[in-house]
């Protein structure tokens, strides 16, 4: 067979180096070409990650046993010899950027699997990559001081699951820097400064949200084919909102990043919620940041509990905590007392009596009061059981007003009672006691002290936010409450107006452990009506106007853009088949009962829609029995489109 010249550019020689020319025959296989090429460059190094990229066809020549003829390569082919793994700047859901080696030659699905393996995120099929939102040019200055964590040194492993060391993949245990990176991955970030939230891009409408979903990369094609270059920025995000088998013990990074994504979705109003829900989200964020600061080891140590024994131990402790142990019972019986002079006011109709001072005694879940300390041995003037009551703060630091407002249920209705405390210290104690009492707990409860602490820190927040105007960098004790809510509420409320509202919501979550708080946050997020919806602007067949298709884990919804209402819901389990006509880029779906819909996609490629639907069906096929291995083939069959055939 006749020999001909083949010119190949070798990336490692630099961009300006001339291509290396080889004399090849058409029956030479790709492996042979590479061998020849490497010999000719006379560079001694590990070439194992390198492969040939055919520029005109936008295709990798990965089958080394195929001949040039079989690939259809002739002398005019522009071939590039380069590594398959290249560094990218990967932006995590937490907003932190990592620099790491990503595979440019495999389908994005596998690239994501590789990244997740490196970062110790289970269930990589739920995540994907998307192109970042283009920033305006003025952002340059910010890019410079952006901290980038470098993970490019991590060796590429093919093991399906990295071996763990101290609860983290072994490559993170190499050095203290690496360990710091793992900590960054697995510990939630502190609340962002309000200005940072305000500066971020916020989708203002469903259509804006739809545009974001047009940025997803195609899972069945490789990064190279999608125009991603070395050192480009790409986002790693949870794409399919069907979170399977979350196990806090193994999913430290996954949970943390999921929380971060949820938190930002709330802060940037990517998902709508009510004001009450926003306050609860704020309270949880506050709590999570506080707990993760005070016990930063908790999450990683719980991850370290790999061996069964320690897991069992913790279980035991938990069980013991739940059942009544002797010591606990002893405590209950010798519960501490809380006694002090307080002022009480009962707003009854037509009475203008002010606050009167009495000697107060807190016992079990009740408050009793007496004329004076000396008379406290006898019968109290009144005894109020706080169980089931509502407790609300009424505090003004500047005016030194420390009121506890109690709504006490009685057969006739709710009785309003105000308790006035003299100072912060007294207030924190009695407020904490009232809160415990309202939940039917006594002062012996272990949470009493922490409750006092949290009340004090909220008071401190109010103090700092009322004295300065939020320009003080958030110290660890006080957080600007604007950091916890979306910008809408920055305008609506001042920090000190916000503080009591968040504190109010906080009392229901203050006892949660870090993991529980994160889980609670995710649960409330998932319970929002719009949770899990990815939007695409579409044009239904036969319709003249744009409408929005919402794709959820279990259903498709059709939203009328004019009204903003959901006009129609189709559930996947009624779906009989779906087709994509790739020529006219139209998606057609048939549901049971002879319901047929067809639409073309406006803000996203129809491949993205196709992948969403197929992907969710794939997610629903995962089940416990089917072991942990990811059925990649099935995913591609369901989402691949015509390339998969």
């Amino acid at each position: 067979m006749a020999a001909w010249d083949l010119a190949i550019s070798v990336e490692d020689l630099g961009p300006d180096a001339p291509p290396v020319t080889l004399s090849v025959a058409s029956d030479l296989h790709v492996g042979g070409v590479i061998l020849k090429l490497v010999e000719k460059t006379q560079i001694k190094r590990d070439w194992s990650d390198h492969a040939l990229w055919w520029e005109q066809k936008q295709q990798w020549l990965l089958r080394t046993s195929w001949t040039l003829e079989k690939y259809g390569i002739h002398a005019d082919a522009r071939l590039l010899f380069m590594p398959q793994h290249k560094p990218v700047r990967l932006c995590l859901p937490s907003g932190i950027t990592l620099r790491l080696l990503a595979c440019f030659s495999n389908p994005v699905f596998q690239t994501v699997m590789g990244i997740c393996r490196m970062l110790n995120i289970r269930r990589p099929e739920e995540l994907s990559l998307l192109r970042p939102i283009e920033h305006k040019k003025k952002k340059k200055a910010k890019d410079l001081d952006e901290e980038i964590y470098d993970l490019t040194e991590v060796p590429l492993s093919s093991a399906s699951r990295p071996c763990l060391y101290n609860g983290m993949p072994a490559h993170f245990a190499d050095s203290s820097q690496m360990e710091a990176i793992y900590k960054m991955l697995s510990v939630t970030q502190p609340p962002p400064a309000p200005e940072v939230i305000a500066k971020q891009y916020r989708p203002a409408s469903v259509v804006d949200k739809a545009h974001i979903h047009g940025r997803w990369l195609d899972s069945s094609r490789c990064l190279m084919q999608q125009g991603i270059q070395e050192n480009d920025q790409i986002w790693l995000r949870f794409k399919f909102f069907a979170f399977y088998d979350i196990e806090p013990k193994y999913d430290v990074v996954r949970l943390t990043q999921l929380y971060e994504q949820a938190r930002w979705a709330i802060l940037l109003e990517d998902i709508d919620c009510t004001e009450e829900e926003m306050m609860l989200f704020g309270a949880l964020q506050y709590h999570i940041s506080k707990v993760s600061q005070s016990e930063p080891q908790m999450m990683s140590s719980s991850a370290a509990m790999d061996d069964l024994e320690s897991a069992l131990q913790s279980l035991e402790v938990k069980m013991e905590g739940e059942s009544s142990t002797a010591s606990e019972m002893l405590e209950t019986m010798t519960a501490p007392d809380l006694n002090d002079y307080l002022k009480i006011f009962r707003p009854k109709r037509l009475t203008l009596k002010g606050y009167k001072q009495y000697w107060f005694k807190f016992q079990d879940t009740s408050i009793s009061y007496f004329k004076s300390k000396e008379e406290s041995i006898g019968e109290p003037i009144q005894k109020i059981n706080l169980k089931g009551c509502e407790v609300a703060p009424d505090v003004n630091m500047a005016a030194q007003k420390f009121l506890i407002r109690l709504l006490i249920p009685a057969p006739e209705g709710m009785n309003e009672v105000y308790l006035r405390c003299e100072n912060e210290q007294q207030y924190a104690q009695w407020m904490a006691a009232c809160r415990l009492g309202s939940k039917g707990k006594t002062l012996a409860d272990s949470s009493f002290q922490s409750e006092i602490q949290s009340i004090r820190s909220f008071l401190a927040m109010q103090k700092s936010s009322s004295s300065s105007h939020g320009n003080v960098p958030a110290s660890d004790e006080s957080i600007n409450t604007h950091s916890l809510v979306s910008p809408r509420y920055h305008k609506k409320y001042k920090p000190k107006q916000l503080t009591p509202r968040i504190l109010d919501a906080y009392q229901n979550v203050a006892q949660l452990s870090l993991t529980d708080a994160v889980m609670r946050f995710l649960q409330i997020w998932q319970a929002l009506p719009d949770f899990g919806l990815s939007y695409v602007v579409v044009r239904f067949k036969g319709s003249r106007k744009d409408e929005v298709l919402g794709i959820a884990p279990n259903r498709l919804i059709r939203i009328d853009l004019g009204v903003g209402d959901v006009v129609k819901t189709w559930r996947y389990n009624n779906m009989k088949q779906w087709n994509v006509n790739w020529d006219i880029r139209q998606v057609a779906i048939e549901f049971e009962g002879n319901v047929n819909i067809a639409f073309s996609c406006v803000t996203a490629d129809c491949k993205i829609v196709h992948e969403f639907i197929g992907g969710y069906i794939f997610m629903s096929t995962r089940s416990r029995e089917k072991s942990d291995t990811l059925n990649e083939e099935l995913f591609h069959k369901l989402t691949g489109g015509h390339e998969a055939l």
Partner: protein
Amino acid sequence: MQSGAALRKDNNKTRINTFEKMDDIDAMFSDLLGEMDLLTQSLGQETVPPASPPSTNKEVNFSIGFTDQNESLNELEDTDLDALMADLVADLNATEEKLAAEIQASSTGSSVSTPASSATSPIPPPQSSKPTKEEIEAQMKADKIKLALEKLKEAKVKKLVVKFLLNDGSAKTLMVDERQTVREVLDNLFEKTHCDCNVDWSLCETNHELQLERTFEDHENLVEPLLAWTRDSENKILFQERREKNEVFKNPQNFYLWKKDKKALKDIKDKDKELLVQENFCGTSIIVPDLEAVLHLKEDGKKSWKQRLFQLRASGIYYVPKGKTKSSRDLVCFVQFDNLNVYYGKDFKSKYKAPTDFCFVLKHPQIQKESQYIKYLCCDDARTMNLWVTGIRIAKYGVSLYENFKTSEKKAAVSSVWTNRSTPSSSNPSTPSPTIKAKSPNQANGHAPTPQPGPISADFGNIPPPPPPMAEILPPPPPDPAFPPPPSLPSKGSPKPSLPQRKLPTNFPPPPPSMDNLPPPPPPPPIDDAPPDFLPPPPPTSGFGSLPPPPPPMSSLPLPPPPASFGRMDQSLPPPPPDPEFLPPPPPEPVFTGGGGGPPPPPPPPPPPAAGGGGGFPRPALRPVGSVKKMPPAPPKRTTPSLQGGGGDGDLMSELMLAMNKKRGAH
């Protein structure tokens, strides 16, 4: 029963006496214990109704529904008194058993056989363990303190005599203590009434003055809401079947797909119902039905009803303020559910001039009289009202509702006889042990059921062996050979209480000789006492007593077909649960899995004839690969006839997998 209990008390005493020469505190505690024992014993012997329980410090005995104590006593019929008596005794026994068990569990490493040994031998259990003498002593001391505290606590427990009104106008009276859940009380009532135990049985609270009615949730404690009643209240507790309690699990489509037209909802397949329950109750988060409706509201003590557009969310009820959009951020919070219960209103049209009689009410459970803090809502029709009340319950109680349902379903399937009396929370896997233990000594000691007053003996004596509960609720056991008889005592070898170990048949045949050198080896006890984590009650020990010892027919049943065992064992039982209520056997058999329990819904109409080949699941269509137009991927092949005969009940995954395998094979 009683003799068993007495024996137990002796044990306690022995233990106490052994350590009389300790320091003061010990002596004090011992005294205390002795006293309490005396008290309890006297309780057990006297026939006088225990008007006041052995409370040392506090008068806690109320009687609900009667104006004074005497009246209540007079009204109780003799049998009821006996029943109460028996309950009380059983109660005390159970507590003691539990105590003993706890002590042993904490003092010895292996608690496997101790409960049995404590029943048969007077040796204090801790001596069977090996630690040093000091340790033992320390442990003893701790145990005693614990015991004493436990007793003190016990004395403080509030108990109520509650009258439950039945549909036929009669009433049952039970003693309920404050730790008991509604579920446990229901179980007790099942025993007393011999009803069919279906999942609809409920306890309802009626408020006479406010004309309200509420079905208690099974996980709630019963005593607490009753304590909120006023002294002169005419409130009642009803024991009735309430369909709406578990309706959301039987017909979830009516709640989660309420917007669809009625016909579509009626035609929904069982498989789809199951999926809905899965989606909304088995995920990481409980999903509350997305309700929105214009309701009439009467609040703040006003007389008039005004209309508002309300929305239900997991976080509360909201309304859309006038002139605003329905967007979440504009919603105004109407109520959150932390301190509120939801009640049905009765006859509000005449009482409050409500637009319709389909009203529900939100109020703090303590409020018993008219108050501005009560919120009255009125719906256009019954369906809307049920939607909202159920939706609010889901938002308030979350996954507990589903757990309650599953527990009651299990209960319905097992049978009405084998109930846990007086045990704390039968749903908690670790707690049923006390009852188990309370019962096993009976057998272990070979006590024939002595004639005793009250339902305890009735349960054990009159009713032949309860049907083996496991047979229905467990997957068929693996073939016998896997378990060579004697060494495979599950209690020892396998600390993990995995369900399959409950294979009754395999355990019976050989009276295990290797059994922990207990002198008299009655077959069942060690198994019973073993890991307390078994959910279902133990094998019917009482049943064995009356059966020829090793029941060969049972052991030879390879797969226990429930009906067979039923037919044999179940003679004078209340109607056995209908088959469809058995829990699903492991292989996906659509016929079984669908029947959630209770009155089965009308059978789904036959599926449309081969409409979709495989039926109701999204199957990417397969087009010939070589067609002119490029087509999407199509894993499942359409060429083969659908697996389950076009019924649309094929499982999506298996279908897909099968098709894919075929395809792979074809290549």
